[in-house]
């Protein structure tokens, strides 16, 4: 027990250090590399009394840094989202991308882009994340309603995955249609929604995603103990004093908001939420407090690494980040599916 507690603390500290390390690498390397002196000069240029920032310095301040921070936040959101979904469904092969949340959120944002320009909808900074949340809620709700068995109201994991597949296909084709008729350049790029990319990062995006990520993370931590109780079953959790129905709604809402807001700015990035909690569980066990903190840090670290690969592999061009996460994630997902220990 004491050993496990130390392992968990060690893993968390190590991951926090790793996150800082990759953040450093992420702001240094890319289409243009910045040396430490470049970085120092760029930061200094913000303050009054220094010369106006040069083009390169502006690239650094307005594109590179927000992108690196957005990447950390999105990775943390997806990691925590995966942990929450897995705890809720008591199954380690679920993640937000598989049960429709991400594609629904992407649909909501694509719809906002297309209709927003046609109907001249209000375009405050919160309109887009709100549209993404509504889309995410719609798709996730649809998957849960349709996957539920008629007899006992429980969603078996096979039904959940198959329904998720269908709903994902539906929303993706809807996004395809919207991209086809869209005028907005961002919505026109179907790759943006399908494969995910961080190239649209801005400080506004960072601010909004920071709110949902940090808020969601702290809320999720408050329910870590109740999620632990849920691991031994819904009835047992009730006997331990958990209001299971309420818990389910709270966790689903936290998850949808975190994932949908992230998706609104980056498109669908799959498999981060699947792999991260799984690796953490193998190292330090299944305690949800540890998993939530760990998956935020590890999700942030891994997505930043994936983004580095995406930026450096075909430099100066860049790969959609979803290609990188899928290339790593799909084999691991298949491996997990083949392991018999899991209950379906």
């Amino acid at each position, binding site marked *: 027990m004491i050993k496990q507690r130390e392992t968990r603390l060690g893993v968390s500290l190590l991951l926090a250090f790793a996150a800082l390390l990759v953040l450093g690498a992420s702001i240094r390397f890319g289409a243009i590399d910045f040396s430490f002196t470049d970085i120092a000069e760029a930061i200094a240029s913000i303050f009054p009394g220094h010369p106006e920032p040069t083009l390169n310095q502006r690239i650094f301040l307005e594109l590179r840094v927000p992108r690196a921070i957005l990447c950390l936040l999105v990775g943390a959101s997806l990691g925590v989202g995966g942990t929450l979904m897995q705890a809720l469904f*008591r199954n*380690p092969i679920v993640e937000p991308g598989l049960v429709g949340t991400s594609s629904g959120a992407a649909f909501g944002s694509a719809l906002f882009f297309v209709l927003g320009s046609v109907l001249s909808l209000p375009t405050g900074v919160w309109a887009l994340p709100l549209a993404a949340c509504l889309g995410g809620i719609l798709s996730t709700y649809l998957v849960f309603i349709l996957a539920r068995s008629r007899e006992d109201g429980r969603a078996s994991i096979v039904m959940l995955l198959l329904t998720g597949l269908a709903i994902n296909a539906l929303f993706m084709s809807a996004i395809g249609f919207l991209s086809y008729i869209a005028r907005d350049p961002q919505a026109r790029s179907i790759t943006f929604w399908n494969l995910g990319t961080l190239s649209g990062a801005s400080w506004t995006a960072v601010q909004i995603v920071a709110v949902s990520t940090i808020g969601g993370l702290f809320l999720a931590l408050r329910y870590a*103990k109740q999620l*632990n109780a849920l691991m031994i079953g819904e009835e*047992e959790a009730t*006997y331990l004093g958990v209001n299971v129905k309420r818990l389910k709604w709270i966790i689903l809402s936290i998850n949808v908001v975190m994932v949908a807001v992230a998706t609104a700015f980056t498109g669908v990035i799959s498999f981060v939420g699947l792999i991260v909690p799984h690796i953490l569980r193998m190292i330090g066990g299944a*305690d949800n407090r540890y998993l939530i903190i760990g998956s935020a840090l590890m999700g942030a670290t891994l997505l930043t690494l994936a983004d580095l690969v995406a930026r450096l592999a075909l430099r100066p061009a860049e790969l959609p980040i979803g290609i990188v996460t899928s290339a790593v994630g799909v084999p691991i997902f298949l491996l997990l599916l083949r392991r018999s220990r899991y209950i379906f």
Partner: protein
Amino acid sequence: MLEAKNITFQIGNITLISGFSASFEPGKLHLIIGPNGAGKSTIIKILSRLLRPQTGQIEYEGVDISSASESDLAKRRAVLSQAIEIAFPLTVREVVMMGRYPHFGGHPGQIDENIVDELMDFFEVAEFSDRNYQTLSGGERQRVNFARVLSQLWRENSTLSHINSDTTQRCRYLFLDEPLTFLDIRHQIGFMKKVREFACAHDVVTVGVVHDLNLAARFSDRIVLINDGHVVANGTPTEVLTTDRIMEVFGITPTFVPIEKSAMHLIFE
């Protein structure tokens, strides 16, 4: 004191429990018996408020529990269910500690740690404290779960010899839903002895469901025989278990064999 007053429970058009009334006293071991589909597990779930009946009410010490909060109830009511599967790698200690969840906020206190240690010893699972629950056998898992369930009702500064009863505090309610499944005969007997030991505390109301009529006869103080969702007989084992009743309810004829220690043993043709 636990009282069930005129309980009716339906799912759709099917009536599972009709007009069920019974009272269960503290300090005694009550066992519910009956054929498959008689509604035994349903009764346990209603008494523990997992299920809410359409009519009638459940009272703990004279107070209707229908509006009690989950967290308040969890401090004084625990339920041991059959075969608990966990999809994630939890250690035995983590599972037992869950029993203390209703009693602490963020992190377990020293009292919680002590109680968990004590119960892991009591159920002989302390040796695999750090093992993954998923790797245990059915019988081992059941012992871990019983340690968990009792830790939920345990009070601090207790010693087993006194089973920590305290007349100034509210009653504690222990429900056992077929706890003997997956246990071999040695563990069945050992388990029933431990249940008896706990059940004799003055402030503990214990209600269980078992299948084996002989175990019920040997260990219980009171037996409630149910069939088709209503009470057929309620009383001491010798009052309830008669040849006619067993024939009527189970459709099989018993032979009573007197043996030394317990009063009677039933065998079936």
